[in-house]
């Protein structure tokens, strides 16, 4: 598939450097964030995320998950500490360069943030249009990404003609259409039922397997525990846990298996591959 090939090529190019010299994709060093109101959004948070990782941010409401996301897209400036993305200090990033920086991030929110008066296709194309993408580029990329996210048959639907899960797929497609090296999702499944949530998580995992680093903030402890991925837990703005949950698997699993992991606490029994799984295994 065109998209995964293109992405694999990009990864090959960066992989030429020795591994040790590759900077962490995200590095928080003693980051605190105090809002003007006096609320502490984040207190002395230190963690780093390596390239290609799939990381969960968990914590109760008000624990600072969204604050981390906002700091990452440079919507806010931290009151203390430093944030480095791909080795570059965000504090040194000029205000004018922020839009160009954000083009390297895919951003997904709980409330989808789709434009209601545009079709699925146009919503995704919009991300390319407003960053100066040309018609040719749009024609090449949009159908690809919609196929990846399983929206090929909904091209001309408007957001209100889609289910919540489908809307979130559109949002993910829009976030990923530029193939950003880092994708952050703030409670992407917050509004979705468990089964639909699993679909979205599978999609994010599929994106992760193309080499993109994925950071997902979520409330859903149960699902996180079943996922055997890295979890950073926050409480009152502090990092209280940063570990690989029990059973974290170094080896890659297919998206189908990943989905099964999510559905059941026990290891998934081997199922007969259905067409969807075959499709998934192409990545």
């Amino acid at each position, binding site marked *: 598939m065109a998209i995964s090939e293109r992405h694999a090529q990009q990864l090959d190019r960066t992989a030429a450097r020795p591994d040790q010299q590759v900077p962490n994709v995200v590095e928080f060093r003693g980051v605190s964030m105090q809002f003007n109101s006096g609320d502490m959004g984040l207190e002395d948070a230190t963690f780093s995320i390596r390239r290609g990782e799939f990381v969960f941010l968990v914590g109760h409401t008000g624990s600072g998950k969204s604050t981390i996301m906002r700091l990452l897209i440079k919507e806010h400036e931290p009151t203390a500490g430093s944030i480095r993305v791909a080795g570059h200090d965000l504090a040194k990033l000029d205000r004018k360069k922020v*839009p160009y920086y954000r083009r390297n991030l895919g951003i997904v929110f709980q409330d989808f943030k789709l434009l209601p008066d545009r079709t699925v296709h146009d919503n995704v194309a919009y991300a390319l249009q*407003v960053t100066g993408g040309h018609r040719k580029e749009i024609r090449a990329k949009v159908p690809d990404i919609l196929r990846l996210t399983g929206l090929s048959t909904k091209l001309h639907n408007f957001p209100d003609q889609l289910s919540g899960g489908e809307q979130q797929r559109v949002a993910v497609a829009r976030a990923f259409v530029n193939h950003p090296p880092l994708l952050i999702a703030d409670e992407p499944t917050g509004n979705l039922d468990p089964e639909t949530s699993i679909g979205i998580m599978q999609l994010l995992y599929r994106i992760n397997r193309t080499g993109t680093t994925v950071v997902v903030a979520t409330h859903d402890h149960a699902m996180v525990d079943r996922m055997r991925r890295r979890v950073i837990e926050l409480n009152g703005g502090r990092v209280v846990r940063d570990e690989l949950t029990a059973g974290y698997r170094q080896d890659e699993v297919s998206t189908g298996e990943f989905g099964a992991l999510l559905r059941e606490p026990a290891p998934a029994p081997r199922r007969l591959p259905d067409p969807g799984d075959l499709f998934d295994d192409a990545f």
Partner: protein
Amino acid sequence: MRFSFFLKEAMRSVNRNAIPSFAAVASVVVTVLVLGVFIPVVQATTGAANEVRGRVLVDVFLKTDAKPADVQRVRVLLSQKTKHVGKVQYVSKADAYKQEKKRNPEAYQLLGSNPLPDTFRVTPDKADNALALRDELAPISASGSRTSIDPAIDKVENRKDQTGKILTATRVVKLAMFMLAALLVIASILLISNTIRLSLFSRRREVEVMKLVGATDWFIRWPFVIEGVVLGALGGVVAILVLLVSKIALIDPLASDFALIASPKTISFSLLVSLLFAASVTVSGLGAGLSLRRFLRV
């Protein structure tokens, strides 16, 4: 591609904010109409006032019993020995009588004899010298009354007072028009700015998404600037069409009758139109800029 994208986005907004857009266009129409009438009218009245000024005369009335020798002596005095004299025109008793009789035949029918004196109409070299000229011909004596420098001269009068009134009147008209125009311009700027604000509000979702996916500040701003300018230009064009139609239908047929309208000193119509168009675009650009500065911190 880029421009067509901006234009499309701008038109989307205009559509969505039909009513405030209409209000903004209407206010630009009114403003441009007033400016379009105001500029030529002020120019024409200023021109007329200047013309009146240019015609300020000093009338030198001779005594009714002046002899032809006296007339000759005063003529030489005026044209050769007096400063500030531009032109001297002699109106004899008989000529004056003829002119006045023509203007008011019945009154002069009743008068048996001719009561009018011989007169010199002296135009000063400059309108502002009219008073000096008068003082020279009839200096004010110590007692406060005027005595003419020549015994044959009865009275020296000028029409400065009337001129002053005309000039004051045009100044007031100009000031009033200017203030009206300024108020309308401000109203237009505010209405355009309000429209853009509403459109910013109704498009806040787009703006949010644009920021998220990394659109540059100016990329976000352009559709709004274009929206404002399109509204302004639309208002300008409508007003200019109205002006054009009224010029063809009303002013042109009258132009031959009214010297004021045909006055060569008024601005040419094409220049006026381009000025007005430029003004409406500038006003709307300012209005849009005002809102973008205040409400779009990108």
